[in-house]
């Protein structure tokens, strides 16, 4: 995965130009919806033409072709209405900074009135520079479905003023959604989310943007160890830590420290700090659980009524409690979540882990089996079935 073929690298460079070209078109007064369509067509043409005929100035090429498409679109409209042809305008070089363009478009695509699925799709196309087909592949839906989702989103945004400041919290949530959508499809969405978050940190001083980037980097660093050669899930305590990406960890820690230095903590910074403590341990046994628990205390304190409003944080904290104060204390913490998370596989999986930590293998096997029945993805389901079978086998005669 490190050395992609040249064509892939070209695609990456090409995609990075998309938000700059699009922002340039919109700032010039083009309609966002039409400009985004025109640029998507230019992008598809670039993917077709560039491998044979690389342009001298890729950004100008994209802007010119997109502008021609806009003119063509206007022409056919004009023909319908028997009006004068629109005049072809040479694109002026955008005067704004790259980071401003990204932020401007992210606010547009992550408009709070759009549903999350629409925000994600539009962001990947207009800011990420992915084709509709790539986005469709990443989410396992037909291309026509994704095209429709994107055009509906753009229709919903039509006529809204472009200059109002957006909601950064929504942007961060959308990028995190892209990250967690993972890397199963042809396009690695996790890497795409990291690339976008990195661009975002160039455009805003908000420490939570850095916190999010750090969180993604520190989690992504463990990806090479997260599955074995057969594609089986390997949990954190059993991962080969030599396979973690130390460069990503170093960058994540650096970005996190710069965010924490602003003394304006937030949930992404706190979650990144927890990830950093895991990444910092040379072995599972050396994990600094007391400090992880302290960060979890801060995390749950961010929300009123965390059991209802941030149960994932309370569940994560229960694991830390189990490691610091003992399995029984951890299980008591999970009891508080039974009503909220009792039907979720993660709750049962955590209880299986805590039972195993406390040496109660029959209870662990039952909890893992319950978790497997509720799991929503095949790799995780298979992993939980294995955990159940393993716990059950370990309690049989062979255990001394």
């Amino acid at each position, binding site marked *: 995965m490190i050395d992609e073929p040249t064509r892939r690298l070209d695609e990456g460079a090409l995609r990075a130009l998309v938000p700059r070209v699009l922002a340039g078109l919109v700032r010039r007064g083009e309609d966002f919806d039409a400009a985004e369509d025109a640029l998507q067509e230019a992008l598809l043409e670039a993917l077709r033409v560039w491998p044979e005929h690389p342009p001298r100035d890729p950004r100008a090429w994209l802007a010119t072709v997109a502008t021609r498409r806009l003119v063509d679109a206007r022409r056919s409209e004009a023909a319908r209405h028997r009006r004068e042809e629109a005049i072809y305008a040479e694109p002026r070089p955008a005067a704004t900074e790259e980071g401003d363009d990204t932020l401007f478009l992210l606010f547009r695509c992550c408009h709070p009135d759009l549903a999350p699925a629409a925000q994600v799709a539009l962001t990947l196309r207009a800011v990420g520079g992915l084709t509709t087909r790539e986005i469709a592949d990443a989410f396992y839906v037909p291309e026509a479905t994704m095209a429709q989702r994107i055009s509906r989103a753009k229709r919903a945004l039509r006529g809204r003023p472009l200059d109002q400041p957006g909601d950064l919290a929504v942007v961060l949530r959308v990028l995190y959604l892209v990250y967690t959508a993972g890397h199963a499809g042809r396009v690695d969405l996790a890497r795409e989310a990291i690339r976008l978050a990195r661009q975002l940190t160039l455009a805003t001083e908000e420490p939570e943007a850095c916190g999010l980037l750090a969180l993604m980097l520190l989690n992504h660093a463990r990806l090479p160890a997260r599955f074995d050669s*057969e*594609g089986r899930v390997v949990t954190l305590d059993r991962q080969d830590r030599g396979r973690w990406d130390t460069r990503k960890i170093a960058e994540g820690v650096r970005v996190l420290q710069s965010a924490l230095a602003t003394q304006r903590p937030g949930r992404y910074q706190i979650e990144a700090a927890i990830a950093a403590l895991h990444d910092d341990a040379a072995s599972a046994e050396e994990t600094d659980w007391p400090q992880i628990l302290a960060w979890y205390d801060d995390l749950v304190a961010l929300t009123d009524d965390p059991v209802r409003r941030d149960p994932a944080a309370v569940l994560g904290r229960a694991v830390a409690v189990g490691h610091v104060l003992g399995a029984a204390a951890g299980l008591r913490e999970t009891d508080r979540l039974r009503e909220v998370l009792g*039907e979720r596989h993660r709750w049962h999986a955590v209880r299986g882990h805590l039972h195993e930590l406390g040496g109660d293998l029959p209870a662990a*096997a039952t909890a*893992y*089996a319950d978790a*497997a*029945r*509720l*799991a*929503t993805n*095949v790799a995780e*389901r*298979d992993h*939980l*079935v*294995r955990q*159940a*079978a*393993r716990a*059950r*086998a370990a309690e049989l005669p062979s255990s001394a």
Partner: protein
Amino acid sequence: MPKYLLLKHYRGGPEPHRPVPPIDQWAPGDVEAHVAFQNHVSELLEENGEYVDAQALIPARTWVRYGGPDAAPVTTDGPHPETSDLVAGWWMIDVDSHERAVELAAYVSSEPGPGGEPLYEWIDVREVMWERPRTTDAA
């Protein structure tokens, strides 16, 4: 070419030919072999050019019906007699003939169970209706 669904069920269908406990109670090695076989079937179908789709469903089920004018949808997740049919997932295949679909379903059913011996699971084979009448030049 006709398309078929090879449906796997959590429960329902004919009397099991070989009754076995739930998979989480098998020996770990048997679990591995079973999971590896499922992946192998998908790869085999892809290699053959017969693969269309494969999906797994979680067991939780909700029945929904129209609630009537201005009424919320009516839902229920029970009661389910233990014998009621519960689909676990499927492969959709695109094959030359019904015979080929049956052959593949039998192969799926030979998946290893406890002790590595075939599971003899009943597979529900359903032909997919075509959207339009078939013509000779259909792809």
